[in-house]
């Protein structure tokens, strides 16, 4: 068990490092460096700085040093909590991002939670009642979930809501709470708005998980030990839940770990369509305006939080999957 946690932790650290390298590359991809962009930005508002000031800025940020050292300096500043200044907003990046990062995670976790609590019982149901009306219904729903990209689903729901209910279904808060400070009432307001984006995000993953759970449980149910259990007169519910379901959980569990990055990824584009105050719209604005510190920070933080989220999801799995606890694989 400790082996398993250790392996996961090492991988998580490596992933974080890889994400930071990728982020650094993204920040440096546009031609010119940060100071060039800063000067151009100043020039567009009419002010300017002298060549010496530019030089000293370059020295301060280590832009005259080799790339590897630049990367180390940049990483050092980030560890200290200094993510740089957003060019577009002229404020520290952390201030601009604010609550948005947490809201992204709230939406993604809500979707993850929904995937878990929907896929497991539906998967079991579909396998136990194979070829029943319900099974066909969920199979259909599953195929639809797989075939409609989530942003398209969001778009269609928005249109239907607007056309037939006459209301705007987007957003995470009602108008009166959008700018208000956090309070219990605001949290409740968020809870009321959460189901729609969570469902939109969770549909594809749930469809996928149902199929995995159904296929694995069907394989298990055909095995002789199930027949033995039935022959012994064990109640049907117990026959199914005691062993086959737990055995079928393994592939289900190992693939659910990959769902979290997928959900975070999807939340970016769904947020844009539904107008959610997550980092999605901010990231797009930053990228279009080439505000690379802001964009890079968002990519970095999203990546790191995804790794942490996946880790938590992995550890939770150990709780439902006894084989992980014992063999560590």
């Amino acid at each position, binding site marked *: 068990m400790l082996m398993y946690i250790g392996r996961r932790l090492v991988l998580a650290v490596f992933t974080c490092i890889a994400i930071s390298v*990728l982020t650094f590359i993204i920040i440096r991809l*546009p031609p010119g460096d940060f100071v060039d962009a800063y000067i151009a930005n100043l020039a567009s508002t009419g002010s300017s700085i002298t060549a010496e000031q530019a030089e000293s800025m370059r020295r301060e940020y280590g832009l005259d040093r080799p790339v590897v050292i630049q990367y180390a300096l940049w990483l050092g500043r980030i560890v200290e909590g200094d993510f740089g200044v957003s060019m577009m907003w002229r404020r520290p990046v952390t201030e601009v991002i604010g609550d948005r990062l947490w809201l992204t995670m709230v939406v993604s976790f809500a979707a993850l939670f929904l995937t878990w609590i929907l896929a497991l019982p539906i998967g079991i149901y579909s396998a136990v009642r194979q070829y029943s009306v319900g099974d066909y219904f969920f199979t259909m729903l599953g195929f639809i979930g797989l*075939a409609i*990209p989530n942003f398209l689903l969001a778009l269609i729901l928005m249109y239907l809501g607007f056309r037939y209910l006459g209301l705007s279904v987007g957003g995470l808060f009602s108008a009166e709470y959008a700018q208000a400070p956090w309070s219990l009432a605001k949290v409740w307001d968020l809870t009321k708005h959460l189901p729609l984006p969570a469902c939109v995000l969770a549909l594809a993953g749930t469809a996928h998980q149902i199929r995995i759970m159904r296929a694995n449980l069907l394989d298990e149910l055909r095995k002789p030990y199930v027949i033995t259990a039935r022959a012994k007169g064990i109640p049907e519910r117990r026959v199914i839940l005691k062993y086959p379901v737990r055995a079928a959980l393994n592939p289900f569990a190992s693939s659910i770990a990959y769902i979290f*990055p997928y959900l975070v990824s999807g939340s*970016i584009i769904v947020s844009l369509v539904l107008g959610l105050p997550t980092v999605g719209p901010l990231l*797009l604005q930053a990228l279009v305006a080439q505000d690379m510190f802001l964009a890079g920070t968002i990519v970095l933080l999203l990546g790191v939080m995804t790794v942490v989220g996946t880790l938590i999801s992995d550890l939770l799995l150990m709780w439902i999957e006894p084989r992980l606890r014992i063999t560590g694989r």
Partner: protein
Amino acid sequence: MSATTASSASAGASLADDRLAQAGQLRLTWLRFKRHKLALISLFIVAFFYLLAIFADFVAISDPHHTDARRSYMPPQGIHLFDENGFAPHVYGLKGSRDMKTFKMVYVPDPSKKIYIAFFAPGYEYNLFGLIPTNRHLFALINPTPVDGIFLLGTDQLGRDLFSRLAVATRISLSIGLASVGLSLVLGILLGGMSGLYGGIVDTVIQRLIELIRSIPTIPLWMGIAAALPNTWTVLQVYFAITLIISLIGWTELARVVRGRFLALREEDFVIAAELVGAGQFRIMLRHMLPSFTSHVIAAVSLALPAMIISETSLSFLGLGLRPPAISWGILLQDAQNVQVLAGAPWLLMAAVPVVLVILAFNFLGDGLRDAADPYG
């Protein structure tokens, strides 16, 4: 599996017993695949869309780049098959009148003005397959005025015909999927093959790399890389860059399949036999192992394709992928991003239909192929 198909299959098998015994792996796969009805239908749908991609300009009615403010946001227009003299497909021409409230010219169909449709008729100029200059189209209007057209699916803000644009968009959206899968396949076979063949440290490193890539949220990453593409690049350059970006992240699943097959086949008797006879490692790989998992690779490819198509569509939808004047499904959907626009012109959502249809078809096709390739898997 129902009893009837099983018995008819066994009857067929006994008739063609000898041929079946000699059939190669690919032929066996095809025979099993044919029994999967949904997958077979999907194969036709996929083939239809690829044909549409090849003959897009021929099927298109009006020039997909031609703008005309007078026919902005025209709703879909039906084709009338009969007039008073019998079968004569026609559409109504447009009539302009001034709205007395806004003093703007408004164009509406005029039932008294019939414009007839001819098949294989001349329309706008284009190059068939990009080579042969021609102006023949599947159907076109006879002597239309510049404002008239057949708007099967309506028009967009700039008055461009959505049906024609959808037909032409098929070309980029489907080919970018194929190109990305091709690149991913090369990466997947190379790295997955190495992983499965050498094992040990190589395997560990590649497996960790795959886990690493899969634990990073892809869309922000794509967005970051795609946004850094220079604005000055041509459509073709952006096209290849997007292909590269999508496949650099999308090869992991293919590598996993290839590795799994290599690991399974390494223990097979015929591989050991080939080794004992003294065949070289390369010969064993290409001559003995590869043919027996081609069908698996084809199945994995057809399951990977929809993901690639969605990737391109998402990126272009965000405005970070291909840019106009290129036409792809994502770019068409970009027009439908705004709910206010959609409320006025809901037909813009029609661009979603081919996306969903193709993705669904590829998923069924992939499922059918996978079942056919590996009846025990």
